[in-house]
């Protein structure tokens, strides 16, 4: 749609700007402030310049956590985006089943995040959980508190359980918005199912997929409560992702300056990757 130039439109945006800026800018500046100081207690602090930044960028533990985080986030995207599209294609399109399936599919999204961890803890424990007992009964050795792979895969399965529905709902809405005429045209051309998907459905999904990829990337990159409840980051540090690493630094070790510098770097990483996704996907639609 062609939009008219009108700078008074800022007035419409003003309430949003004020509300978001209140909670965004002041805390951000506080974090910047912390990140250049060594905070010993509420009244004793020293200016240390970029020391924290240099120290953090060299920290091998941090590199390991970042690596784990990247692998995890990209695995999440690699599983959830195709699966979400596939499920959305299978959703019923009319009749009473639409409402029923929507309600059931949306349910995991409305579970508080620490409860998600609790649900999977109860479900996957090898002594009392249905999944754990079944797998062990089948002769597969499974104990997510001990096995590294078991722990990692359980966290991934939990995230798939929790969030695939978001991709499904977004893609479903995108698919429903495609006019029938497109399908009729494809049918006249004798297009195969794959061709319909590739040339009719997928291009019209780019908008919602942008949202889905970005949301899933950001949230999985900041995942905290679920693995914290389920595995506590273990065994070893297999499921200690960046957020938890950061929280340990800030809360347990009370290393505010270092943690602040770290969270700014963390923020910039998310910002950079999201920006790349954003431009790549939006550019590919405007050929």
């Amino acid at each position, binding site marked *: *749609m062609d*939009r*008219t*130039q*009108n*700078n008074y*439109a800022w007035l419409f*945006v003003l*309430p*949003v700007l004020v*509300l*978001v800026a*209140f*909670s*965004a800018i002041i*805390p*951000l500046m*506080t974090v910047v402030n912390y990140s250049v100081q060594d905070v010993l207690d509420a009244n004793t602090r020293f200016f240390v310049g970029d020391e924290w930044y240099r120290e953090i960028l060299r920290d091998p533990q941090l590199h390991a956590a970042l690596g784990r985080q990247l692998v995890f986030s990209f695995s999440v995207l690699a599983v959830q985006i195709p699966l979400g599209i*596939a*499920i959305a*294609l*299978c959703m019923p399109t009319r009749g009473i089943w639409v*409402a029923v*399936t*929507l*309600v*059931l*599919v*949306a*349910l995991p*999204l*409305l*579970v*508080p995040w*620490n*409860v998600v961890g*609790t649900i999977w803890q*109860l*479900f996957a424990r090898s002594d009392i*959980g249905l999944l754990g*007992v079944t797998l062990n009964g089948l002769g597969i050795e499974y104990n997510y508190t001990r096995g590294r792979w078991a722990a990692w895969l359980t966290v991934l399965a939990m995230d798939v*359980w929790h969030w695939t*529905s978001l991709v499904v*709902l977004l893609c479903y*809405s995108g698919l429903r*918005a495609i006019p029938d005429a497109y399908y009729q045209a494809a049918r006249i051309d004798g297009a195969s199912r794959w061709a319909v998907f590739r040339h009719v459905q997928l291009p019209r999904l780019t*908008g*919602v997929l942008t*949202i889905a990829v970005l949301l899933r990337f950001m949230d999985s990159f900041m995942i*905290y409560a679920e693995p914290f409840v389920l595995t506590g980051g273990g065994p070893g540090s297999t499921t200690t992702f960046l*957020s938890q690493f*950061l929280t340990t630094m800030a809360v347990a070790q009370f290393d505010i300056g270092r*943690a602040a510098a770290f*969270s700014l770097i963390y*923020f910039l990483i*998310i*910002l950079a990757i*999201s*920006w790349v996704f*954003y431009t790549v996907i939006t550019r590919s639609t405007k050929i």
Partner: protein
Amino acid sequence: MQKTKTTVMIVYILFLMIPIYWLINMSLQPNRDIIGSFTLYPQNLTFDNYRRIFTESGWAAGYLNSLTYVTMNTVISILAALPAAYAFSRYRFIGDKHLFFWLLTNRMAPPAVFLLPFFNLYQSVGLFDTHIAVALAHCLFSIPLAVWILEGFMSGVPKEIDETAYADGYSFPRFFIFIFIPLIRSGIGVAVFFCFMFSWVELLLARTLTSVDARPISVVMTRSISATGVDWGMLAAAGVLTLIPGALVIYFVRNHLARGFALGRV
């Protein structure tokens, strides 16, 4: 073809429901059965876990607190996002693209370290441990999302409708409230769903900004668990109770959700 689709749907829904079934199953068993024997359904059906939760103090208040700040957050977000989304969908103005992306970046701030500044900020303005503090803090991620969703729906409404309304002598507020909002009703339904959802499930900010008066349900839950050690039955029952408001919200917006998703190009 249809058969494969139905099978896929059934498998997926089973995958979603089985862990929830297991949670309900455990919440209805006494603790010695949970640890002692492995059963697919409760053999000694008991509502004891629930009774204990409801007789202990703090639970009902926790529920009410959560619902209060979630509702406040949803109302504030939608009211602020409506005009903003209209501006983004209808006008070009200086810095619009940057502003839009900046709004989205607010979802990207890792909460862990921003907790302390948040705490300081809300304490210094005297809002600590109030519902509105949590509601405002949650606006940080619910408003950008609401703007994003509503903008999509609004762009789907042809601009000719605006122009016709003005030609018929409607003022902007009258046009917006009586013509435009009804047109994007379903979009508002979808936005409400997402605002409610992200505010209801968030734990870290809600926990940091409250202590007693506005303590949310998920915090009440973690505290009473740690006080009694690992009490599986009660943990499961508490988990089930946190599912109910979410389920109710989906039930109430289900038609909007179905229609909204059918109309929108989010």
